[in-house]
């Protein structure tokens, strides 16, 4: 899961970055509304964590602006403003959830995963593709009931493809989701991750659509003689 954290306080932001990384999230952090606009224009993210009191403007104004521009990414407001009218304003401005500081990291990640799940049209936290099961929050991947260890990037890539439900995703979009603002990405990094996924799971888990991008392959077929 790729999270864009918009938070001006360095201490809170560093805690969020370190904490969300524990839950297999890719985190990009910006500190101002201006940087947030640029980040959102530059790459897509799965979910946004938005602080309201930004140095160069109000987070609510930024959120309203995004919603007017049809930016559909789920937004969770993370703030110290606890008044009911603030919560109502936040939700009316287009927020999908409202969490007060200080928060519990477990709860926050659970809420973020729930937002991404709902945005993908799923009702359960597990993502199933035949015998391939992914639990995004814990990062567990099961194939034929056996755990498979994937790196954070590989997991994020697989999750994105599974959430796309067979739709083709361009390489750029996948890269944005995986690396965010990290500019120091090797040109063949995506191919390496896809290669690892095919090796660790099964060969047709990712289908290359030449000139277009990649999509999730058909569900895994149990190897002959293995299930007897």
């Amino acid at each position, binding site marked *: 899961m790729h999270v864009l954290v918009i938070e*001006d*306080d360095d*201490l*809170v932001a*560093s*805690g*969020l970055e*370190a*904490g969300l990384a*524990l839950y297999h999230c890719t985190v990009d952090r910006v500190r*101002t*509304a*201006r940087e947030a606009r640029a980040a959102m224009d530059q790459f897509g993210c799965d979910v946004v964590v938005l602080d309201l*009191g930004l*140095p*160069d*403007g109000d987070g609510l*104004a930024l959120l309203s602006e995004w919603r007017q521009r049809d930016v559909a990414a789920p937004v969770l407001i993370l703030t*110290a*403003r*606890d*008044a009911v009218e603030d919560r109502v304003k936040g939700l009316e401005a287009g927020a999908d959830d409202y969490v*007060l*500081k*200080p*928060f*519990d*990291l477990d709860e926050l990640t659970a809420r973020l995963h729930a937002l991404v799940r709902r945005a993908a049209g799923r009702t359960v936290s597990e993502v199933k593709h035949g015998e391939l099961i992914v639990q995004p929050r814990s990062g567990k991947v099961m194939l034929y009931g056996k755990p498979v260890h994937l790196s954070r990037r590989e997991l994020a890539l697989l999750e994105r493809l599974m959430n796309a439900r067979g739709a083709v995703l361009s390489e750029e979009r996948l890269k944005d989701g995986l690396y965010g603002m990290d500019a120091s990405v090797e040109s063949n990094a995506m191919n390496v991750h896809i290669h690892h996924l095919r090796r660790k799971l099964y060969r047709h888990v990712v289908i290359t659509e030449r000139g277009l991008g990649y999509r999730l392959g058909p569900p895994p077929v149990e190897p002959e003689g293995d299930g007897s």
Partner: protein
Amino acid sequence: MSLQRRLLWSLGSAFLLLWLSVAALMYFHLDRQVSQTLDQRLAASATMVAGLIAGQPEMLMSSRSSPLLVSPESEGVACQIRGASGEVLLQTSGVEDQVLNDARPGFSTREIGGQQWRLYTLEQSGTFITTADRMSERAVLANGIILVMVVPFALALLGGLVVLWWGIRGGLRPLEVLRDQLRRRTPENLDPVTVDRAPSELAPVVETLNELFNRVATTLAWEKRFANSAAHEFRTPLTGIKTHLHVARRVSGEPQQQALVNAEKGVAQLQSVTEQLLLLSRMERKGEIAREGCLIAQAVDDALEGLPERERVRLDNRCKEGRVAVPRTLVAVVLRNLVDNALKHSVGTCDLVLDCSDLQATSGGPQLRVTVRDRGVPGSSDSGSVGSQSHGLGLPIVHMVVNQFGGALESEHNEAGGMDWQLALPLLSTC
């Protein structure tokens, strides 16, 4: 008792007393006039009889056989004519013999046959002419006069009281409207009251009331903002501490050490916020802060010591020997908060200019001027450091210090796209 009833009671009582006094005076005057008139009637009657007798003395001679001079009804003026020896020569019917015998000349009042009579006796040529009327008849007349006076007076009085009640009620109507508005409103409602066609006497009351509502609303808004700021200032480092401790529990080695270091930073921030709140509390309890002055240069050093991003601050101190009439700790806190605010809400450098050459002549004496100038964030909707809507406690504390020590704080947008904060602190006279 309501104002309306009180007014009605006092004005009605005064009204009633005046009217009754006037009525009583008129009655007594009229009663005396009527009595005098009736007395004059008795005297005139006696004089008329005397005139008749003088013109026709044979009347007395013929009266021996028929002494009845007049035959009045049971009521009216009675008359008796006596000779020098006291014999009755002539009298009206109903007048008992000898009854009026001993009447002396002039007016007198006597009880005759259980009734009070008013007599007038005139002596003429050895004859005594006495005229008389019953006092009961005079009482009936007096009662008639009272009745004639009382009914219109009573009606006028009642009418006057009704008019008075109507006038008072109409006059106090704006007060009633004001009372109803105040009674109906909820304690949270601080909207101004409106009284249509308020009289000039009530207008200042309504105006003062509305100003009071406005001040209360402003104070409540400020307190709410302050509470929000305090909540923000407390919750932010607390969030950092909690998150980093959570991370520290889940990792080991270098990441764990880093998380613990970050948590400690949060504790330091929390401590700073607590100290500022305590300072604020002490300032609210006036007297706990010593009113001593300080050298501004020392306070500036204190303010900038350990400041994160100290390299972004350009200090221009043109007032190195200046002493301000504010404690050093507070000056340091004020400057630190202003610089913090400027650094947090802008990019690039921030200027801190201290100047006491251009002394501001105010009623409080010369002041040292401090300018904190930032350059804002290019391209952002807001320019520069924030004003009273800030989430921090810094600016409320600056305002409080400035107000308590007779200083001033103003802010304005500058040409660089940021804000200039102009702080004025009173200089010590020994400067």
